[in-house]
């Protein structure tokens, strides 16, 4: 076990998969000579050369679509979006083509493509660069989407995503790139569709994904230390496929659920989780399911206000106390 950054963990995953499979090719804006806008691909060009690590023009619809087309022939492109917000100019390629071609061909085609990059608010870059589209992607059968919160999960999920034969969209977080975490040695993979209990607890389940897991863990510390409430933190890790069982097991144990994520509330991931809980664990609930999401407006620029807009430990604690009374 080593302690490395979330960024380094992804870099290792990419390097190891480039090494393992000659069909893997890294493509995106500034991924090669510039070493990555966020340095996630640092050193890969030097190590693997310009056939395997390819700079593209600023042309998301073009190069993502090109990756989808190449993947139909068996190439395994790992495409970097400098921001997931830029996916919106490539949505036709990502949804209509990557997401639907298998179905429309009656299963004759599959697209082993990965699209990865940061999808988060909290960096004061305004609404156009702060989107969290995991709920949009999860709404498209045919696509898979994962949101790692820790270095170990970032590496393990990335490796599984690259080996998967369906399109997998990996949503990272610029605020996590520098976070340190323990990562198992060797060929560390984390399967898609498996959640993880990041902290055990008995009084309430905090169900989160992405950076909101860190927020929930901070809240759980305070709840235990100052309020005598033992919160369990469930990290979904993978949104689609989804590990419903781990969520339900936790709720059946704690009888309370507060859902925490940085999606907007309307039809966000938490909406689906809430539905699942009320359909399958209704009799176990001692309180209404509550949610803590980004406040329901475009991402604001003003730094102190953006902090308020995103889920914070304080907002989580407030909701937990309300359901635990």
């Amino acid at each position: 076990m080593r302690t490395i950054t979330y960024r380094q963990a992804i870099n290792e995953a990419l390097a190891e998969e480039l090494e393992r499979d000659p069909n893997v090719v890294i493509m995106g804006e500034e991924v090669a000579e510039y070493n990555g806008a966020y340095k996630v691909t640092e050193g890969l060009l030097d190590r693997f050369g310009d056939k395997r690590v390819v700079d593209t023009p600023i042309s998301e619809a073009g190069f993502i679509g090109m990756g989808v087309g190449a993947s139909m022939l068996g190439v395994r492109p790992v495409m970097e979006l400098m921001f997931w917000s830029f996916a919106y100019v490539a949505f036709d390629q990502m949804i209509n083509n990557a997401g639907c071609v298998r179905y429309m061909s009656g299963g004759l085609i599959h697209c082993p493509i990965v699209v990865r990059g940061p999808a988060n608010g909290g960096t004061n870059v305004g609404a156009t660069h702060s989107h969290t589209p995991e709920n949009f992607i999860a709404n498209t059968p045919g696509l898979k989407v994962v949101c790692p919160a820790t270095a170990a999960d970032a590496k393990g999920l990335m490796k599984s995503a690259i080996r998967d034969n369906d399109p997998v969209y990996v949503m990272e977080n610029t605020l996590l790139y520098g976070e340190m975490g323990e990562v198992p040695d060797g060929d560390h993979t984390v399967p898609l569709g498996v959640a993880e209990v990041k902290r055990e607890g008995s009084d309430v389940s905090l169900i989160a994904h992405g950076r909101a897991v860190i927020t929930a863990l901070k809240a759980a510390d305070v709840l235990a230390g100052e309020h005598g409430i033992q919160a369990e933190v469930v990290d979904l890790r993978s949104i689609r496929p989804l590990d419903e069982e781990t969520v339900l097991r936790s709720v059946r144990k704690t009888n309370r659920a507060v859902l925490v994520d940085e999606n907007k509330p309307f039809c966000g991931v938490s909406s689906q989780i809430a539905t699942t809980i009320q359909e399958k664990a209704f009799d176990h609930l001692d309180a209404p399911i509550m949610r803590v999401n980004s406040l329901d407006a475009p991402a604001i620029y003003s730094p102190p206000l953006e902090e308020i807009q995103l889920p914070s430990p304080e907002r989580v604690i407030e909701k937990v106390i309300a359901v635990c009374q």
Partner: protein
Amino acid sequence: MNSAIDHASAPINQKLGPDDKVGLLRQMMRIRRFEQASLKQYQQGKMGGFLHLYIGQESVAVGTISLQGENDHIITAYRDHGHALAVGMSMNACMAELYGKVTGCSKGKGGSMHYFAPDRNYWGGHGIVAGQTPLGAGLAYGLKYQGIKGSCLCYLGDGAINQGAYHESLNLAALFDLPVIFVIENNGYSMGTSQKRSSAFKSCLAERADGYNIEWDRVDGEDLYEVRAKTQVAIERAHEESRPTVLEIATYRYYGHSVADANSKKYRSPEEIEHYKTHHDPVNLWKQRLIDEGVLDEATAKSVDKEAKDEASAAVRFAEESAFPEPRAILEDVYYEVDEATEAGRTGKHFFND
């Protein structure tokens, strides 16, 4: 026909024997008869959705795809029946797809706009205007990445050239030296909007390729020899130089944008349509050319046409008699890993119906 150059004498056309030439006629007749049969059944309410007919444009798919080699790939938009038959897909599977039957080429999941046959290097069949053009660049990228000498013929309509995806594809194709040939099938109308009302251009639509340093050419689509000769130049450029080409092939569609195009006879005059049918029909012109060359007679032409018609009728019967997919098919062919029952496919919940 372009009288200045005799495209029949191009080496690629000199290679054609009498049977090959009649074979090209047969392919065009098959496409026309298939589509006439499908139109008749559509009008009787046998199928849903849209039906974008290719009638009038047959020489484009047949001429270009007649040059397809082992590593040449094909991708097109939603007016895709002609290309499908030209690559060798069966009328039965194509007709059954229109009916939404399980015997359809996509098991009834794609419909008219979404035919696929990867085993014949045919990658669709795509519904969004110009959405297939980055995929075409990607197929070419894949060939190049894998070190295979091949090409991708990526078809689009004249209405597609104003989409950003097409321009992004041109830039990538030139930048990365991709062996892709963008074939603009210019039938003059972007749905109901004429070329003049939809596209800004100097001499022609293909000329935009100049801005990307891509070779381009204009082609008279009613002359099969010209279509083949100029496409062959592009294919050789792809194979030998790994460079893209844009071809603009002038053609015409007899029917509306789709059969559901209520204004199909309003945005162009009946005289215009009749004039094309009478003087420029690619099937008739090719037939007459072969008669003039002495490799075909009327009786043979009639029997080729009858065979095509009978084949289409049989395809209708096949589609009629085929079953619809079982309801469980709705949830199949969504995820590879689930369909193949791999460990990844069994891990986590993939569908959320209950």
